[in-house]
């Protein structure tokens, strides 16, 4: 009988190191209180590629994602070990300005969470908190990001209306527009389609594909099909450990680890 401690060591395909890493996760451990949620994660996230995190519920993929922009700081009793580096600097550096880090990393959440303001103000929010209030700059940013999020044509006549009047799919695209309005380098997406219908999901997947080459995208997903459709690289997590990471096609067609094969072929999870 195998216990979690007997899991095979993480297997990183050489393609994961083919390019310079934008973010590199090094020996990363995380505890909620006394229970450990992440175990010795080592994973480079390549620049301008789309990386997806897959794995069964509770395997720590969302936790790892939220560790990258230190959103876990909001939760009491979280301790971390190891390091996540973005460029030359550590994300967990003692005197790091967390807000400026988060400005470089956009985030889209599982449940669309537009602010209770107008569509226009929602997009402006990341700019306004950085002290940008110039009308022309804001107008331009709103149009650019809404176009990037394929929402411009639908909302251009009602920018002053409440964002809460939009449909679920539109709200999620608005959140994407908001996340990229501040021109971040990295975009973190935490199951962005799990609450959406298939058509909205397709639209958002299209958006993600368009972002390849412009942003470094990390997407957590429950849908294997989605991971295979949108991502260049896939990382499979299980019980807080990284089991295997490599090119998506390779993982889905011929994974090296038995556990990955079983998960992807739907034999558990």
């Amino acid at each position, binding site marked *: 009988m195998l216990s979690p401690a007997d899991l095979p060591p993480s297997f990183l395909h050489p393609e994961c190191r083919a390019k310079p890493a934008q973010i590199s996760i090094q020996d990363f451990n995380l505890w909620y209180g006394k229970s450990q949620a992440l175990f010795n994660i080592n994973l480079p996230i390549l620049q301008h590629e789309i990386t997806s995190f897959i794995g069964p519920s509770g395997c720590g993929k969302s936790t790892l994602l939220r560790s990258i922009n230190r959103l876990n700081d909001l939760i009491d009793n979280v301790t971390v070990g190891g390091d996540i580096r973005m460029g030359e600097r550590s994300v967990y550096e003692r005197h790091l300005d967390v807000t400026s880090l988060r400005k470089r990393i*956009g985030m889209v959440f599982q449940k669309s969470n537009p602010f209770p303001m107008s569509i226009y103000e929602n997009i402006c929010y990341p700019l306004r908190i950085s002290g940008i209030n110039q009308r022309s700059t804001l107008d331009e940013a709103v149009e650019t990001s809404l176009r990037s999020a394929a929402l411009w044509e639908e909302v251009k006549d009602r920018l002053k209306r409440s964002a809460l009047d939009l449909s679920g799919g539109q709200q999620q695209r608005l959140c994407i527009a908001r996340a990229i309005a501040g021109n971040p380098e990295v975009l973190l997406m935490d199951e962005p389609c799990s609450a959406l219908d298939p058509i909205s999901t397709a639209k958002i997947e299209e958006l993600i594909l368009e972002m390849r080459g412009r942003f470094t995208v990390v997407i957590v997903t429950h849908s294997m099909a989605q991971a295979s459709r949108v991502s260049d690289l896939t990382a499979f997590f299980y019980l807080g450990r990284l089991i295997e990471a490599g090119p998506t096609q390779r993982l889905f067609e011929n994974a090296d680890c038995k*556990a990955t094969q079983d998960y992807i072929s739907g034999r558990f999870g």
Partner: protein
Amino acid sequence: MFPFLRKQADAQAASKGNQPAVLFKTAIRIRSRASHNATEGVPWIWVCAGALVTILLLIAALFGVIISQATSALWPHSVVRIQQDQQTVIGVAMRQEEGTDPQTNERQMRRLVYQANRDFGINEFTFIPSAKLAGAERPASLWFVERREWGPFIGRIQTADPATAIDIDEKTVSNLVNEAAMRAAELRKIEKGPLADLNASMEEIRLDKKKIERLLETGKISEDDAAAKHAELDKQLTESLKSHAFLTEKVQQLRSVDEAIKVTLLAPNGQSKTIPASQIMRAYQPNSINIIQRMGLFFGRLWSFVSEEPREANTEGGVFPALFGTVAMTILMTLFVLPVGVMTAVYMREIAKQGFLVSLVRIAVNNLAGVPSIVYGVFGVGFFCYSVGATIDQLFFQDKLPNPTFGTGGVLWASLTLALLTVPVVIVSTEEALTAVPRSLREASYGCGATRMQTLWNIVLPKAMPGVMTGLILAMARAVGEVAPLLMTGVVKLAPALPVDTHFPFIHLERSFMHLGFHIYDLGFQSRSTELSRPMVFASTSLLVAIVLFLNFIAIKIRSELRKRFEGRGAF
């Protein structure tokens, strides 16, 4: 397949299989009980619904009583004439009750009749057996006269010379009254305008003189300077006195014109009294007016009630100062309680580390809501008036001492005391509102790179605003109705001036004020005759209730606007 994976899968399958089964069982149990004894839950529904209906009916009844009594107090009732024991009783029939006849010692229904005419040797109130009232006459020629002094008069209005006295017709009376009102308005304009200004500036000169003497004593200015300044002030004073004398003379002239125009009031008992026409505020013949005139009179009296100052130890006239005082104090309290309460709650919920100390503070805040309001009053007078206020007087109003300025009760201290009393409500509801702000919104804001303060200010607080408004509504409702702490911190039976006037600095927060709640208490329990002040008590009560409703209405309106804005139409 890995054995551990199978184990995991088995465990999951087991839990998936089990949980619904348990739920299912429970559901069956509930349903079977309901179907076996279908009526089991029904009595409770009826009991709860009955309780709700009872409360609603009680509230409706309370409102009904207050409003009907208040309407009756302002309504121009007709006057009846009844013969009783060789005496003519003329007056307004009021409430009916069961009482004992003094002669026959029998129980009988009787009506209270208000005869007015206090200064004509007539009892203001008398009882008439209800049976007699049925055939009562309603003479059309009788007048009901509201006077500035001595209360209402019921009887006839005649020309001033008693030897050749004849009844005055309606048109002449109304002309007399209107002209007198115009003269009164002119007088008032002088007294409240230039004359009041002069008095204020003369008081200022007196204080300036005192200040110069003080500075001289402490050696801050030389004797020559002091003498020069004194001379300057004396010159101003002489000028002021001159214009004062001029104005006083003008007032005297107007008064003498006023005094010359007289009428005679002839009471039903034959006594008469000649008074200046200006003593009459309103006169009408209650038995000869039609319903439209009656309505007109009713609204006229209603307007006088809310817009005029009280007369006759508050038992007559209006309640404007009390109305103004109540609203001003409540608004002032809102200005204090809202920022302090919200900031406290924000600190406790958003900034402070949750732990023993914060819990302790939270319990203390909740307990504050249970402290008797009179205790707040005692604290208010001790802390605000006698400590803070006295210190302010020492520092800034030295020249007025020993007369206190801030060192005694005033509208500022009263509203601060009430703010203290109501701050727990605001804190508790703000905390609840902050807790209810979804975590996802905060995360979205932090995810954009916002700081804690930016998130709080831009996202959390606006979203919590409707909840804060709820707390504010509760606080306001409580503050408007509270009287006990005001007794000590600045409420008076009759305030000489409003807290707002045309003299610099226009808003005088140190002034004592009148309050409707206290007004009701004072009228109902401290006045010469409870029977006489009863209508005013009800009228004031309905006005107070109306203010509470009005203030709440505004707050609720604001809250629903906020809700609309922050929750959108298409909810999540």
